């Protein structure tokens, strides 16, 4: 399929090209909605659609005013601050607990492994609305509803499955004789972990942390229920904005968030290649 052989029949030729066209259209469907908001976020008008000036590429049709609004409006700035305060702490908790557990799970003899795995993965599987409802009721009872730590703990719990999965994946290719070698040379388990295992699983830990970060940074359902005004995050502000006052500032924020996604994606891709090269799994 990768290339058309010279002896292809006309039918094969037509099929080959139409298949490419179909795939092109699907790729267009995937990427167009994300690209379309970028130019619209520079709209000089408060509209959600292209104006005549914009289509004529008239510079007067474009402006930074929605970006300016984002950086000066206290509501958006408060939301940005809250997101920045919540996501890293939740990531830190999720990553440290998750990495330890993944190392534990990768040992050869773990009792009740399927049951433990099911519990640890459950935050990823249970629909968010159910997690949010349960946490809302339970955190209300214990006084965590509407508090900073309530949101952080909830987000950390939601992020841990991703850390476990990514770290476990890097540990699959891990050569256990290295641990034994380290032990036989007199290192204690803690030293072994930090000097031998850690450097090799770092790519997995970092990509797990990125997943945990983006889980918290993008999360809206749980924070809507658990949070109060003091924990209003960017996605929350976007959600109320979309439901109530649809201002193009949302598109400016959305464009900035796409930029963040591109950065995260690049980092992840580099990590993946590095880890594969390290473990000799792929030519890279």
């Amino acid at each position, binding site marked *: *399929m*990768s290339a058309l052989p010279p002896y292809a029949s006309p039918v094969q030729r037509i099929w080959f090209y139409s298949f490419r066209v*179909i*795939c092109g259209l*699907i790729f267009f*469907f*995937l990427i167009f*909605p*994300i690209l*379309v*908001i970028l130019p619209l976020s520079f709209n000089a008008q408060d509209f*959600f*659609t292209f104006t005549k000036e914009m289509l004529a590429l008239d510079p007067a049709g474009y402006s930074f005013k929605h970006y300016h609004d984002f950086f000066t409006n206290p509501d958006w700035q408060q939301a940005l601050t809250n997101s920045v305060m919540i996501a890293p702490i939740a990531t830190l*908790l999720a990553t440290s*607990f*998750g990495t*330890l*557990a993944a190392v534990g*799970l990768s*040992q050869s*003899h*773990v*009792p009740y492994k*399927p049951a433990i*795995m099911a*519990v*640890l*993965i*459950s935050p990823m599987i*249970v*629909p968010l*609305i159910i*997690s949010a409802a*349960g*946490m809302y*009721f*339970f*955190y209300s*009872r214990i006084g965590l509803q509407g508090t900073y730590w309530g949101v952080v703990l*909830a987000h*950390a*719990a939601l992020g841990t499955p991703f850390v476990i*999965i*990514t770290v476990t*994946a890097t540990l699959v290719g891990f050569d256990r004789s290295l641990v034994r070698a380290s032990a036989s040379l007199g290192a204690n*388990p803690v030293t072994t972990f930090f000097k031998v295992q850690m450097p090799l699983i770092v790519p997995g830990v970092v990509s797990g942390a990125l*997943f945990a970060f983006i889980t918290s940074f993008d999360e*809206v*359902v749980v924070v809507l229920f658990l949070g109060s005004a003091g924990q209003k995050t960017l*996605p929350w502000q*976007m*959600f109320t904005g*979309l439901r109530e006052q*649809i201002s193009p500032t949302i598109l400016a924020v*959305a464009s900035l*968030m*796409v930029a963040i*996604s591109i950065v995260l*994606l690049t980092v992840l891709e580099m990590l*993946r290649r590095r880890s594969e090269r390290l473990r000799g799994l792929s030519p890279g």
Partner: protein
Amino acid sequence: MSDTTAGEVLTTKDGQPLKVALAKALRREKLRSLALIAPLLIFVLLTFVAPIVDMLFRSVENSIVEETLPRTVVALREWDADSGQVPDEAVYAALYADLAVAVEEKTHTRLGSRLNYEEGGMSSLFRKTGRRIKRMDEAGPFKEQFLEADRKWGELATWNVLRQFSPRFTDGYFLSAFDAQRTADGIEMKPDNERIYMLLFGRTLFLSIVITVSCLVLGYPIAFLLASLPLRSSNLLMILVLLPFWTSLLVRTSAWKVLLQQQGVINDFLVWIGLISDANRLVMINNQTGTIIAMTHILLPFMILPLYSVMKTISPTYVRAAKSLGANDWTAFWRVYFPQSVPGIGAGAVLVFILSIGYYITPELVGGTSGIFISNRIAYHISSSLNWGLAAALGTLLLVAVMVLFTVYDKIVGIDNVKLG
């Protein structure tokens, strides 16, 4: 200590039998792994599993009646519901004593709201009676005064509801979740104009299937193309799949709102090229179409990635062999390639389906009233109608559905083999 065996048992350097030493080492290893897992396990149990269990409990919990009307509940135990008579004066006296306290503590309206979920009119009954209670004569007779406050106190239905829902646990919320109710004649379906949850569960199921199928139809060619291209170009194209995957859900939902509105980009474009007239702009948002389009886009990467990882392992030599044996392109694909990709279809479809039946944000923003899911109803009961018991019951049913699906997923893929990115 017998001579016959001593020489045969292998021992370690310090004289322990090898078997014992190994068992010890194994136990130590088990303990060490558990010690590493324990912090997270405890963390997840406390912050995540406990809330879910608490929610399950809330779906059957019903202590409010007994707490608000303790004396009445006791007095009602003596009453024979089948007698066709309303309870005697003693019960009314108990009700007076209870309500006097409840009105003082302002708990009677909450009880009224609770009972109103089971029988319409209870909320207004408790409110009206609450306003009258202070003016009632403390000496009695109470039955007369209650009947005067509201004639509903003289109806069997009122007392039946009170009696039926006086135990601390109830199946009432689950019955409601199935559009059923408990009446004097046993469990019955609610009247047609009040049935809503089965409809919503059905719609959630239907929309999830449509979304899963559209994801499969769109995702299969893409995964196929990516798996068959050389690594360099497929890595490049993979970015087009991963970028949406990494982009915030709200960003993508806002994008669809921009595109699908009647004054949105797509309609503007169609009017501009003259395909539709300005007056007949397409309605693609605030209905099922909006939900299906936006959610297919959002969940498509979750279909492509598992499909791709399975297709990557299918060796091209099989297809080549089939062709060299005389199969045409279609036969080679359908009889040789497709069967090998079925595990990927299974994994992707179950994953997309699990994710979609629990969706809340996107239907809320683009679904209107016809494109919403059961999740939106759960959120409504938590934040607007305040019927938390019913929200918990609906949540429990949804959770059971997801658990069943997940077990299927586990059988197909295995939890250990979940891959990301």
